[in-house]
């Protein structure tokens, strides 16, 4: 029998699910939710008491309005039930310990790390989730994909690696190499694609240019998949990455406890598709708890992974701030879009001088101004009872003479985008801290001793 090659022009990884009519998609979600709820109810010592206390049992889930009665799970609850038998996962483990074959943990930036158990089927599922992402972004078997990340206890781009293999790409693990060695390997092997956090992708470009005299735009990378930070969804940051590498930069969002739940397709529609065949995403009004169905209203995401078994993710309160887009994507997928990707985290949004501030909007301004480097730092403190906000930025070499003009532009744009006045501090290029993976650029000192 003649071997048939898969059609590389097929835009969808799974045309059946990605084009499923909305009413069927909703029916599929409801059925799957019922299944995963029953699975956890029968097996998890975390979930069953939670649901019993709320008076909801599997047979009570008849429609989406019933799903909204299901108690949410917060990260703190996962922390509390772990480090106990079955060690170390504790009460949420739904399979025998000897069926667990993958361990990962959260980074612990918001507290004690959460351990995540996966069976091999769950791990296949992770790679399947990522296959939707990579195929939609144009990864094909002809690609040589370079992975410039530390392969360790964090999930990071592990599943991206497995998915790229599954798609048929040639995968080059750049694990323990330092940044310069990674750049040289990309050059040597003529890699065509890579994955990284926006901070690291910009940092690599900077290293190539300033320390190695290599123009990253000439290295032949044609596409970059970002995750871990909102950057690829921020137009000015995306533009900087695309210009630096002469590549298309695509956004994606996922999390250790959730899975890889959304992706930006090749059309770059100004947002990401939620993979609604594998996840149920609800957007909840932060103040009222009401579920938001209409576009244009921001809220925090409550998410269910519909097929993840070892340690289920059911109505997980992710605290990611998102909103539904009003326009469908021209790609033809029936999966809904979230506008602008993940807009921030509910616990990052803070009040400064009585004004709600999402740090991500500061990045949008800084990265949109020519003459400033990619780095910045925001510091909020108090003088007596009054909040103060300071922005540290770096001038690019040669831009020093334009400092006053840049400062005025910065102040105007920041006032427009955030309704706040800032003290601006300029630094020479290279003086602000560089970050390897995720950056910590927003520092709120108000909880410490007042100045």
């Amino acid at each position, binding site marked *: 029998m003649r071997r048939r090659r898969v059609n590389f022009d097929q835009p969808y990884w799974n*045309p*059946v699910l990605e084009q499923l009519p909305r009413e*069927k998609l909703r*029916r*599929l979600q409801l059925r*799957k939710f019922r299944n995963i709820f029953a699975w956890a109810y029968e097996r998890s010592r975390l979930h069953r008491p939670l649901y019993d206390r709320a008076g909801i049992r599997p047979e009570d889930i008849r429609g989406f309005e019933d799903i909204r009665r299901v108690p949410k799970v917060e990260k703190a609850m996962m922390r509390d039930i772990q480090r106990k038998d079955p060690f170390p996962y504790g009460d949420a483990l739904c399979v025998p310990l000897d069926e667990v074959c993958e361990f990962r943990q959260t980074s612990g930036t918001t507290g004690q790390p959460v351990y995540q158990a996966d069976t091999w*089927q769950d791990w*296949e*599922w992770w790679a399947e989730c990522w296959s939707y992402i990579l195929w939609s972004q144009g990864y094909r078997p002809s690609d040589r994909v370079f992975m410039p990340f530390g392969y360790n206890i964090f999930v990071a781009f592990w599943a991206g690696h497995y998915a790229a293999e599954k798609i048929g790409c040639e995968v080059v693990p750049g694990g323990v190499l330092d940044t310069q060695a990674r750049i040289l390997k990309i050059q040597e092997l003529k890699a065509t694609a890579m994955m990284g956090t926006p901070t690291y992708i910009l940092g690599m470009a900077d290293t190539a240019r300033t320390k190695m005299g290599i123009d990253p735009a000439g290295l032949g990378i044609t596409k970059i998949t970002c995750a871990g930070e909102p950057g690829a969804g921020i137009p000015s940051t995306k533009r900087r990455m695309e210009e630096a590498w002469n590549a298309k930069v695509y956004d994606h969002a996922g999390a250790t406890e959730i899975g890889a739940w959304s992706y930006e397709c090749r059309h770059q529609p100004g947002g990401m598709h939620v993979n609604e065949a594998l996840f149920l995403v609800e957007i909840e009004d932060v103040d009222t708890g009401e579920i938001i169905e209409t576009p244009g209203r921001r809220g925090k995401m409550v998410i269910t992974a519909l097929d993840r078994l070892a340690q289920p993710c059911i109505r997980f309160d992710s605290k990611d701030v998102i909103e539904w887009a009003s326009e469908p994507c021209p790609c033809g997928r029936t999966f809904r879009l979230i506008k602008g990707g993940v807009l921030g985290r509910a616990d990052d949004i803070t009040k400064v001088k009585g004004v709600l501030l999402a740090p991500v909007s500061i990045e949008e301004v800084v990265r949109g101004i020519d003459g400033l480097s990619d780095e910045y730092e925001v510091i909020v403190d108090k003088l007596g009872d009054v909040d103060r906000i300071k922005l540290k930025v770096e001038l690019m070499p040669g831009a020093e003479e334009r400092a006053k003009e840049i400062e005025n532009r910065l102040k105007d744009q920041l006032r427009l985008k955030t309704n706040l006045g800032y003290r601006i501090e300029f630094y020479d290029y290279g003086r602000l801290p560089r970050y390897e993976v995720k950056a910590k650029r927003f520092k709120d000192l108000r909880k410490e001793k007042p100045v």
Partner: protein
Amino acid sequence: MDSETDLAAINARIATLKKTALELKALGADIPCLDRNTARILASLKMLEIGFSDVVDLDSGD
């Protein structure tokens, strides 16, 4: 690709593969190579079920 016939044919073959894999696994209690490789095949087959079999009878109601 939205033809019901195609989907039904895909689903039938997934079911056949799964039946065969389960039969193989049952023969592998004392043969780790057989047991573990079929366990992995079954995990891959589950991805096909998620991708295709789960949507076959969506019209039939719940």
